[in-house]
């Protein structure tokens, strides 16, 4: 009787654990570029069995991509770098994921790893600093850092915060067009801080704290949207002081700004 009960309990326990594991990932197919809890779990599991040596940061970047492909190769799965049902099932079968440990380390902002066969207590360096972030990295467009984006958002907010959204994207696009133009400096900071180039820089409005809209506008421009259609100048016809600017060929008007070549 006692043995039966124990077996029964163990069986239930196993069922419970298995069920818990199967629930692990959500239903989504995870692909490169994705962000979030599923990616954290994916990285932690891949690290557990030694396929992934990078940081568990919750962003599906190149190193995660290669880890997934190597995993698919080793386990005879179709090698496509996509984490679908079969890859997830296989991964859950061969690895463990201590969600509580991983999430806690991320919340605390600690440096940590999640390898199998090594006590977890040895894999974390405490920094004891609480953050509210879910991931410890971000996707950034190629060639731009988050700080570049911030600087541009500052400039866009200072220059065009009263403009419609599309006008803000266009101002950000002008900064980028100058970056690629032979007549202007080659760095984000060089273009923005070129003396006399932007009034918001001259009068210090660039140091206002930009809002989320300005940041979004900058991201859209960097990702390839150019509402200015290739403009490298713009001006407000009501306040423009330089006569020369009127001689530039005009492309279009958005809100209060005229964009020109």
């Amino acid at each position, binding site marked *: 009787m006692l043995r039966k009960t124990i077996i029964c309990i163990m069986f239930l326990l196993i069922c419970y654990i298995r069920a818990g594991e199967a629930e692990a990932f959500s239903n989504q197919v995870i692909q490169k570029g994705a962000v979030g809890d599923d990616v954290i779990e994916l990285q932690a599991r891949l690290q557990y069995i030694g396929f992934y040596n990078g940081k568990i940061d919750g962003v599906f970047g190149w*190193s995660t991509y290669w880890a997934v492909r190597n995993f698919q190769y080793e386990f005879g799965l179709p090698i496509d770098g996509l984490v679908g049902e079969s890859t997830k099932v296989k991964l859950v079968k061969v690895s463990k994921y201590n969600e509580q440990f991983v999430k806690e380390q991320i919340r605390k902002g600690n440096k940590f790893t999640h390898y199998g066969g090594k006590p977890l207590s040895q894999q974390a360096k405490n920094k004891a600093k609480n953050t509210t972030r879910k991931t410890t990295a971000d996707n950034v467009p190629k060639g731009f850092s988050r700080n570049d984006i911030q600087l541009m958002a500052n400039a866009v907010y200072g220059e065009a915060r009263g403009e419609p959204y599309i006008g803000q994207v266009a101002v950000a696009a002008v900064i980028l067009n100058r970056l690629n133009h032979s007549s202007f*400096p*080659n760095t984000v900071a060089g273009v923005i801080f070129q003396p006399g180039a932007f009034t918001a820089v001259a009068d210090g409005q660039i140091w206002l704290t930009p809002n989320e809209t300005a940041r979004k506008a900058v991201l859209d421009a960097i990702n390839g949207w150019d509402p200015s259609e290739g403009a490298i100048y713009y001006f407000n016809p009501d306040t423009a002081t*330089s006569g020369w600017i009127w001689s530039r060929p005009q492309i279009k008007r958005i809100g209060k700004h005229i964009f020109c070549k």
Partner: protein
Amino acid sequence: MVRAFLIGLLSLGIIGTAYWGYREHQEKNAVLQHAENNYQRAFHDLTYQVDLLHDKIGTTLAMNSRNSLSPALAEVWRIAAEAHSSVGQLPLSLLPFNKTEEFLAKIGKFSYRTAIRDLEKEPLTKEEYKTLQKLYKNAADIQSELRNVQYLVLKNNLRWMDVELALASDQKPTDNTIIDGFKTVEKNVESFSETDFGPTFTNLENEDREFARAKGKPISKEEAKDVAKTFLGLKGKEKISIVESGKGAINRFYSLTIYDPKTKTETYMDMTKNGGYPIWVIDNRPIQTQKISLNEATIKGLEFLKRHKFTNLELYESTQYDNVGVLTFVTNKNGVRIYPEAIKMKVALDDGTIVGFSARDYLSSNIIDAVPKPKLTVSEARAKINPNLKVMEERQAIIVNDLNDEVLCYEFLGTLGDDTYRIFINAQNGIEEKVEKLQDTEPVYGNV
């Protein structure tokens, strides 16, 4: 008693104010002086660099040995870049001074291209030699003009701050020396801008690309609205306003603003006038929390492209920013990726609708009728890449190289240490056309 006390208090106040004012004045002057010094430094640096540039171009002219020519041209390139950066620090953006900057950029590009070329195999052509001679002469003109301005600046103690203030307020400054001097420099360069830099130099200006694919009859504003309705799947209740592009636009286009009274949000769209091809769309609606995955977004994106007759496109890159997926699709013609034909899309991850579309690259790419046959096999091409690189993926692809030509390449994706690289080997002659280190994610600083 009270009076004496009040007088004392007031005089104390006056003395205090005077002292405070004096300090403020001093501080202001210190700050102004600091800014002035920065301008002075940039200006004197510039004259020195143009001097040096002139000298170095002169040396390259006298050189015969190719072994010394390459480093000398590299030197010219470096100095031109420095001079360019100095110009960028001067308060001249309100002055039409862009020709000079362009001139410096062109010298830089010309010397760079000739410096990296194997001059043993491909020596300087006659035209290139002539270009160098012309550059030499122009540099001399600019140099003497700048030296003259510099002399006057030093002699008369001219201040750049005054120039900046004068330019900003559009007043005639009392002493025009600096502005006049730079205007002369600019004029000098203008005569140069028609110079022929040789056949490899035709495409330095890739800013003004025409839409090679926007063929067809010009459409009317009403027709443009209809195109927008089908492309965006509008219900009919939306208010559409439309304006035509200004005279400065290379490609004539319409700009549409679509206001949806139900959601109270605006969608913006530009469309070519010829043929009515959508250039880009941005829907600026607020996006709720994520409900669908990046993968589902990709499928939605592909469906959208198919619906609008963009065929043979495949996903090249996908990235999630908060609750938006940004996707890049490129053409795949019989297994060959054609990178210039790229379309970008933004998909909202709350309900999977398309909130952004950009076909600018696609529209301005040249139409490739037939993909050429490669002369090299893939293993021959693989032998050309760094043996330390672990190749993970390979395929054929057409890219636009540094000279702005479309070339057929073998594309290799590989890892070296923790980094991932993308390498393009020309499939006809084995030249390493492009090597890029692919950016991984950026850790959050400050938090970690």
